[in-house]
């Protein structure tokens, strides 16, 4: 296994900043959903460290001023219901004003309830019908190979999503085609809408299933920023398709949401929002450093 090398770009932030960033993004998620009065907090919060590391840890080579730059790396959020955490990252990265996050899920907004390619800048694929993102990523990886370009393709899947047959079509295909620029990440938070994954349609041992498809697999703690950064570094350095199984907790970062599947698809009330934001502020929110309060 290779160790961390210079494959990450110069814009990588320190672990300390990344940890604070993750909670900044979480805070946006809470505010967005509370204002929209709908959305999926649990699966947005569980992906916060992974999404933060991708956008701010130097793994995704992108340019918010040129979202159509042909040689940008691609990030596909296949578990589309977690899009609030991606919108938060895109806004913080500068794709659109942070204030626009307030328009989530409203008529005429660019921030649709699930990701829509070509609507909000920085969204690469239309998802929300589970199971489809890895196939789209395979097509992008094939295009990069045909162009002789070293574009990286990252696809974030949900664990419940891995119950979809198309995921395994794509996993089998990736194992056969062996693109060396494709990374699948599983947000393994152990819950799906109706309950525990292991009760409904068990995936365990999930890493073994991906290994059986001949992907290289690493399991990480998806909330330990150091492990997330090391895992992504390993994945992008690896020749051939790589899969990171990120063990996470649904709702992580907000104590009353963590591990409680009630918060799969329920927005916080005004009072719950205030409690959650207080907690996140005490855990690193404020990194932005401008002192600007963007939320009403």
């Amino acid at each position, binding site marked *: 296994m290779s160790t961390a090398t210079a494959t990450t770009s110069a814009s990588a932030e320190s672990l300390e900043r990344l940890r604070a960033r993750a909670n900044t993004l979480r805070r946006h998620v809470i505010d967005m959903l509370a204002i929209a009065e709908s959305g999926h907090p649990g699966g947005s919060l569980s992906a916060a460290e992974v999404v933060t590391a991708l956008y701010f840890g130097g793994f995704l080579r992108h340019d918010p001023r040129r979202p159509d730059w042909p040689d940008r790396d691609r990030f596909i959020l296949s578990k589309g219901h977690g899009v609030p955490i991606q919108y938060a990252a895109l806004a913080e990265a500068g794709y659109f004003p942070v204030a626009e996050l307030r328009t989530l899920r409203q008529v005429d907004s660019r921030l649709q309830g699930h990701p829509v*390619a070509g609507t909000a800048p920085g969204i690469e694929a239309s998802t929300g*019908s589970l199971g489809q*993102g890895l*196939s789209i990523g395979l097509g992008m990886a*094939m295009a990069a190979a045909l162009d002789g370009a070293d574009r990286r393709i990252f696809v974030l899947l949900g664990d419940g999503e891995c119950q979809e047959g198309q995921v395994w079509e794509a996993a*089998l295909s990736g194992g056969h085609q062996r693109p060396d620029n494709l990374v699948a990440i599983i947000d393994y938070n152990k819950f799906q809408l109706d309950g525990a994954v292991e009760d409904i349609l068990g995936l365990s041992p999930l890493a073994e299933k991906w290994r059986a498809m001949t992907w290289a697999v690493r399991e990480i703690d998806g909330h330990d920023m150091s492990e997330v950064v090391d895992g992504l570094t390993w994945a992008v350095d690896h020749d051939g398709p790589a899969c990171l199984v990120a063990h996470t907790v649904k709702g992580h970062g907000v104590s009353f949401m963590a591990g409680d599947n009630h918060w799969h698809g329920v927005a916080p009330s005004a009072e719950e929002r205030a409690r959650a934001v207080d907690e996140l502020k005490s855990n690193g929110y404020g990194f932005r450093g401008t002192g600007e309060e963007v939320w009403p």
Partner: protein
Amino acid sequence: MSLAPLYPGLEMGRATRDAYGEALRALGEEHEDIVVLDADLAKSTRSWKFGEKFPDRFLNVGIQEANMVGMAGGLASSGKVPFISSFACFVILKGFDQLRMAVAYPGANVKISGSHGGVSVGEDGVSQQSVEDVALACALPGMVVCVPSDERLTLAAVRAAYRHQGPVYIRTGRAPAPLVYEREPEDFGFGRALRIREGDAVTVIANGMLVGAALVAHERLAAEGVAIRVLDMHTVKPVDIEEIQSAARETGAIVTAEEHLYSGALGAAVAQAVSRTHPVPMEYVSLGDTYAESGIAQDLLVKYGLTADAIVEAVRRVLARREAAAAAL
């Protein structure tokens, strides 16, 4: 077994799927951005003709229609022009949600070829006979849906599909089809019907294999002094509303003919246009609301009423209805 007995007076050509493969290969010479995917039916869809010439830009994804459609979405969003092929019932039905999310919704520049349309697939039976695909493809916003009638029109349609920016579905057939055109039509364009016979009594609006049948019906009815107009409505979506309006206004009755279920395809598209602008009596030649069965193609087309005879009968029915309506006034 040749279908020639069903099309007296017409020369038999090759299957439209053969023309698809050839057109693709020729286009590949001109355009390096074309990438072709197939789901283990390349020998049957004829996409192997491209793959043989351009192996680096051809991928047999295996028996995975959903994954193939998703991959095409990713290729298109990275600037490629993917042409994906399978049997019509597999790529459209098994790939439908993927066509919705990865192709139609983002308006991806993906070209879909469904071969083995209709019951003329023959002996393999219902599982391989696609009879719902045109309706489903038409349901997708922004999708161009084309059902070419012969090999020459197919060449033009495949070239037009490359030129068109956005998703296109081309449905081809397994069986050799009667030749409708002496040469490739120069004035081909999606959404522009080709008026291939003039007439003022009734207009027959057909596509696919039924265009040849309409030409035979035209000769037969002409011998009785009934001059029917024949439109090759190769594009079901966007349908040629102007030609339909003219047909309704000038001939006063319409028969549609297609190798597809009654619902949601050519008959429905024409009826919508007619009802909005110039209501006239209509009759429909189609498979109706049923599945067919195994059998040789000729027997199936006859049994399920997809022949020149069926068109002649439909023309007589619609003329009788129009006369009855006139008499009641």
